[in-house]
């Protein structure tokens, strides 16, 4: 299982803070995005930062996810 988390404006836009997707061999975070983006285009229009297991990942970084991985799609931060 892959746990996908949302916070702040992205969570509000999706209407959920967590979605679980089935794990499959070779799955990358980009595949997760490609699966969810068409269902939530407005939310993903806000996404500019992605983290896998608590670490930021760049667009070109596409190592396969492990079963149980946590993927987070985030908008720009506004703390402070």
């Amino acid at each position, binding site marked *: 299982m892959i746990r996908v988390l949302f*916070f*702040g404006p992205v969570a509000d836009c999706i209407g959920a803070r967590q979605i679980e997707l089935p794990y499959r061999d070779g799955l990358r975070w980009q595949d997760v995005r490609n699966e969810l983006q068409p269902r939530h285009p407005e939310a993903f229009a806000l996404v500019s*930062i992605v*983290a896998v297991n608590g670490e930021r990942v760049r667009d070109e970084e596409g190592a396969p996810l492990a079963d149980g991985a946590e993927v987070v799609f*985030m908008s720009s*931060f*506004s*703390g*402070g």
Partner: protein
Amino acid sequence: MGAAVRLQLEDFSQDEEIRALRATSQRIGGIATFLGCARDFSEGREVCEIGFDAYRPMALAELEKLRAEAIARFALIEARIVHRLGAVRAGDNIVFIATGAEHRAPALDACRWLIDELKARVPIWKKEITPSGEAWVTPHP
């Protein structure tokens, strides 16, 4: 006293944070602080409350990294960072940063650097609650 880096729902005491910072070493000759608080007016609208959401484990880890980086980069003796989450009413405290160094310049420089980096790197989001509705805040440069 709590940890040097914290995310918490409740308010904090600036005096207690500074006391904890000073208690770490008598080599500290300069302490700089930054206090961020909730304005009651933003973008032409009255603001009653600000709501903070965070990806908590990553936010805490990033704050820890920022503190360690600031200590190394500015040769600080100690630094503390506290950020509130949840609902913060207008006029209340949001974030407190305190930096201690042998001299004032690195303490002041580090304090400014820490709040700027916090805004860019720590996964926290701010929503302004106004009499006419709610809106997530777009980051300011």
